[in-house]
């Protein structure tokens, strides 16, 4: 199993409060990702990081910010939590996916953490 931990595993908070979720890896992988899982939607990418201090938005980034000050940690912050952000949040890691010869992609598998269940009341 890839060394990925998420904290906290469960959290209940109130609307309008800030919340920070932490993802920690011991694999020294360059790429880290935050997803949320909701019924009927599968998993959706929130933000991802392609190196220390390098991050970019995913498909559902509104209301979320991220930070990565060192290789092993990727933080997801909800500045002011809303009920629509009630979800299960998964962190994932991967190594570099690069185009191989003749433009054919060589991709590394993405490994997921155990998830954080967040309830915003």
């Amino acid at each position, binding site marked *: 199993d890839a060394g990925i931990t998420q904290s906290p595993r469960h959290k209940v908070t109130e609307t309008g409060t800030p919340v920070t979720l932490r993802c920690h890896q011991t694999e020294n992988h360059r*790429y880290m990702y935050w*997803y949320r899982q909701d019924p009927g939607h599968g*998993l959706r990418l929130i933000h991802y*990081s*392609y190196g220390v201090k*390098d991050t970019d938005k995913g498909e559902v980034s509104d209301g979320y910010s991220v930070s990565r000050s060192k290789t092993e940690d990727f933080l997801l912050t909800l500045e002011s939590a809303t009920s629509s952000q009630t979800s299960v949040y998964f962190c994932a890691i991967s190594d570099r996916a690069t185009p191989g010869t003749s433009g054919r*992609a060589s991709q590394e598998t993405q*490994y*997921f953490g*155990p998830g954080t269940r967040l309830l915003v009341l």
Partner: protein
Amino acid sequence: DQQVKQNSPSLSVQEGRISILNCDYTNSMFDYFLWYKKYPAEGPTFLISISSIKDKNEDGRFTVFLNKSAKHLSLHIVPSQPGDSAVYFCAASQISQGAQKLVFGQGTRLTINP
């Protein structure tokens, strides 16, 4: 618009028979496809993948087929076992700055009956 769709929310199969899970996508820029398996209260675990330059990839009891012209992929599990009961997600990948941006389907809950 959902770029990756799994149109069957659930599937029930008898133990020992073949399970076939289907997935459709709309974006022809996807170049890599993956299947993940998920148990309750756990993160998704990688199962099998296929590059867009191939039409089949096999790993033990699991085979993934890709039909690019139809923008369709399927996962075959044979023979199905009780431990295969889980939610299965297909995902499509685009590379951005070396990162693997995955777009997931909604998932199919597979139940294997003894």
